[in-house]
């Protein structure tokens, strides 16, 4: 009985939402004028207009997106750090095929992540996708050589201090133009030739910072889940 009422309620809710969307939906026939978007590309120097939007015109959104990501990583670490961690996470015994192929695939995956990050303003990609690709490479590394080894190598590189420092650096890059009496969240670095890697240095810098931040944040989430669950 209760289940039937719930099902009817669910169908009603979804139909209501769909009706509201359909009634309210006014799709403008004319596509965006190319002049607007090309002007945006000239102002930021990025060929990829999506990157020009989310790291140029709507940088404020991206800033808070990074902050939401940081808060989620902090929340995961905070709530799981009170739980007892398994002393030694037991890796699933992997076959030699995975162990050998991880050694070959890891550099390729990391290079792909770097490429997506540093060419995000010229081609599809960007800091978010590049960081996630590199973090999946780290997960493959964990599956082949074990969690503790990867964790020791990465903490030797000071990755945990970067975890807290990178959001500060992103905020600093956004706020720094005010020191030079420019509007906040504006481009500080000079715009170069369009279509080149250093054509828009400020978007390149922001992409690199966001990519590193997403890489470290995803690695922290993966590490915390594996450490407190005891399995890979």
């Amino acid at each position, binding site marked *: 009985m209760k289940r039937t009422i*719930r099902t009817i309620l*669910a169908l009603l809710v*979804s139909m209501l*939402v769909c009706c509201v969307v359909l009634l309210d939906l006014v799709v403008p026939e004319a596509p965006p004028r190319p002049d607007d*978007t*090309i002007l945006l590309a000239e102002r930021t120097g990025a060929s990829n207009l999506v990157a020009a939007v989310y790291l140029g015109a709507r940088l404020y959104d991206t800033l808070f997106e990074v902050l939401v990501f940081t808060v989620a990583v902090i929340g*995961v670490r905070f709530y*799981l750090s009170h739980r007892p961690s398994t002393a030694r996470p037991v890796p699933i015994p992997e076959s030699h095929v995975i162990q050998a192929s991880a050694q070959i695939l890891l550099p390729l995956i990391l290079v792909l992540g770097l490429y997506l990050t540093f060419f995000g303003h010229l081609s599809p990609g960007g800091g978010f996708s590049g960081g996630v690709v590199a973090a999946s490479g780290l997960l493959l590394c964990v599956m082949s050589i074990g969690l503790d080894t990867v964790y020791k190598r990465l903490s030797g590189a000071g990755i945990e201090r970067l975890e807290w420092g990178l959001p500060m650096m992103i905020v600093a890059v956004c706020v720094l133009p005010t020191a030079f009496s420019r509007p906040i969240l504006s481009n500080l670095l000079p715009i170069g030739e369009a279509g080149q890697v250093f054509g828009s240095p400020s978007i390149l810098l922001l992409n690199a910072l966001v990519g590193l931040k997403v890489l470290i944040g995803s690695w922290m989430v993966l590490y915390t889940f594996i450490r407190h669950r005891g399995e890979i």
Partner: protein
Amino acid sequence: MAWINGTTIAMVLFAIGATALIVRRDLVIKLLALGLINSSGILFLISVRFHPQMTVPILPVPDGVLIADPLPQALVLSAIVINFAILALSLVFVMLLVERYHSTDCERIEHAVETEKATLGSQNLATISGSDETEGRP
């Protein structure tokens, strides 16, 4: 078959996700349903301005070719990252609940919480009345 496009598929996905979110009692399946609703929103935002003659918004484009609107794509990027953050954080909460109540069934968890509250309340009442009695005694 012109009505089968991204918008209608997004609505069907939303209906499936909302139904699963309300009807199913398993918390992990509720999270999966939330992810489905998020995906339907992404599909809707991307396909609502779709036009077959548009190209990707990456310069340079040839003359006379329409460029797709980059704004919904940038919004969708935020939606994906925030969905990841929500999923990670709520999985932690589900883990904590499962550890404490040994179930992912939300009604069982509610029942367990209510019984726990009731026992705690009676214990508190007992301690309060006991302290009153001890204070009342000379």
